[in-house]
């Protein structure tokens, strides 16, 4: 049935956390995502990008996570950005006028860029270390 898988990638130098979610974010699976976001907030990491490329559906429980934390995140100088929404999800995002509250990007790069200047180069550095 409904499943969710979440992977977290943290960029140390820029303090950006990228959360990649796959599956369905609904009543049953939302708690898992919320845990991840709350653990980041606890560690004072307020810059996050949620990669929704693999998410087919987000119920209000899912949107609720973003909406309920966004104020806290903004007040701490961070942001929660959504990236790679598929058409179905994007339609709901627009219909519900969440674009007033949450920023969405077509690609991860766009979202990263919006956080700061030279993140792409940063990224390549990281690869070099590996």
């Amino acid at each position, binding site marked *: 049935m409904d499943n969710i898988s979440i992977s977290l990638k943290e960029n140390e130098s820029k303090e950006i956390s990228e959360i990649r979610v796959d599956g369905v974010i609904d009543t049953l699976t939302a708690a898992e995502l919320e845990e991840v976001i709350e653990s980041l907030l606890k560690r004072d990491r307020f810059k996050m990008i949620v990669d929704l490329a693999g998410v087919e559906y987000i119920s*209000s429980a899912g949107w609720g996570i973003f909406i309920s934390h966004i104020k*806290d995140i903004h007040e701490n100088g961070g942001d929660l950005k959504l990236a790679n929404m598929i058409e179905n999800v994007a339609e709901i995002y627009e*219909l519900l006028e969440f674009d007033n509250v949450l920023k969405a990007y077509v690609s991860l790069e766009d979202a990263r860029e919006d956080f700061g200047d030279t993140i792409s180069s940063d990224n390549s550095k990281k690869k070099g270390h590996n």
Partner: protein
Amino acid sequence: MFRRPIKEINAEFKAEEKYLDSIQRTVRESCIAASMNKKEITSVLLAIEEGATNIIRHAYLYEKGLMRVRIVIYKKLVVFSLIDYGRSFQPDNSGKVDLHKLVESGRKGGLGFYMIQKIMDSVEYISTAAFNELRMIKRIHKEKEKGRPFLRWMLTLRFKFSVWTFIIVSMIIGGSIYYFDHEISDGMYRHKHETVQALGTTIAAQASGYLINNRSDVEFDELLVSYKRANPELRLIVLTDATKMIRAHSDDILFIRKQYQAPQGLNAYIYNTPQTFELGNEDVEFLVIPIELRDHLIGKVYIIYTTEGIYYQLADARTQIVILTMILLLFGIIGIYLLSDYFVSPILKITHRIRRFTSGDLETELPLEGAEEFFEISKAFNQMITRLSQDRKNIAAREKMAKEIEVASEIQKTLLPNKLPEIQNLDIESFYRAASLVGGDLYDIFQVSEKRYCMVVADVSGKGVPASLVMSMLRTVIQIYGRQLQSPKEIIVAVNDYMKINIPPGMFVTVFLQIYDVETNEIVFVSAGHNPMVYFNSDTKKIEQLNPKGMPVGLPTRDENKFADSIIEERRVMCDDDCFIIFTDGITEAPNREGDQFGIERLEEFIVAHAPDSEIRMSALSEKLIDLIDDYTGFNKATDDISFILARMQIKSSTPIEKQKSENRLLVRKINSDKA
């Protein structure tokens, strides 16, 4: 307000999260039926999920419950209703939810409702005593489909019929034209070859005389030239003698007396059979005819001729035939189309009638006309309409009845005590649940004088509306006589006198009636054929069944005093922590899946197990009992009304006098039991 609905879907689900999928599926199918687009369906499903989740979580608090989904599809909108029978929920400020306020508050609570409001065109929350309904309306935005009419026309029966007839007729005509054309052209070619052959033979015959007589070459040459001139299809005629020397040539006289060379690749020894070869740009035939005299070959006639003339002749004829056929076909198609119109028009008529039927016209019938097949369809349709309209009338009547019963149920509810009186030293709780909308059970607790309270549990024989009406009457009578008369026996006798005149024949009521005195803590009770009262003695920790004899109320008796004589009044002084339950047989006769009854033993066990706990409130005990019964019956729908009064003596104000009194009572009881 609205037009008639196109379709209505009703479904009931258990209010559990695992059934969300099934609910979604039902909704999705309805959305597709309402021809919503993909985007609308996705959003509607989201809203439904929110609504349903809300019911599971907040209306039922994750406990057992049912959720009804009703979807009514109209032409331009769909009404989705989620109905539950749990706690009603108050939407925040009962107005529009604002996204920014949600963000400010950092709460998730209102988001579901916000989403529903955003997705749906109208949202209403209706809360009544019996149910809550979340009613959501979604408009259908039908896209303008361009080019669709043409496509639809392409799909009509008429068009298909015409196309198929056209194809079949064309194939037949084309096939026969091809066949005849083939035959004719073959014949023409054969004829041409035969003509040339005959000509060649004539020349050969003439030539044999000429060769024998050795006449002038020139003379014969002229003969050949004139032949060629007379037959334009001839390209060359050459006459040779046995040594292949040319004796006459239709083209040029200069070739005479030279050797004849057959065109390249052709065999000059194949006689009387045309060989085809290419000369210049045209295909020509090469024919060799031997000149024989008494079986001796004395010369040959070579003829080169063309058949192209036939080709042009044929091409002309074909063009004419094709044009003619086209014109005929065109008229044919028009004819077919018009003809199919004639055949299809009864279908259109029936369709039109069915449309009117779906939009509510149940009266006009289809005229019985047209071909036999349509006659039958019309007849069957008329029968169907008649049946349907009858059914509809029946349904309407039944709905009206159901409505009336609902009203009766509402009225009846107001007849049951909505609040129990506070009784000194007595923790008391009552319960009532009707098996159907209207019940035949009665319980009542009311004050009859300053220190005395009357408690009644009764069960009217039969069910439904008649039983409920008798119950209403009974309550009124007991309330009146309970205040006027002193002892329970007097009261029940007076009630019986009234009831036996006014109760419908064949019906009766069993009643347990007791008066409790606050001063003496004494209960005085009578039973008119009712179940025993289960009494817990806190001293012995044992159960007693108190079951004074008595006839049911409302039975006709020949002897005036028979009822009064049958009633025996009993009394008992209650001690601290004593406990009793007066109930109807809905409890003891509640069946489980196997049909076994709950039984009085289970009830007694229950009381013995819980009554000694002096901390437990009767309200809690009552809930426990209901749970026990419900667990026992499982999903079996209750077949009988359940009602009971549950009470316990609880001497709160421990003034010395009260304490003394209580101790005295215990002492008296001990002495009495010792005596026994």
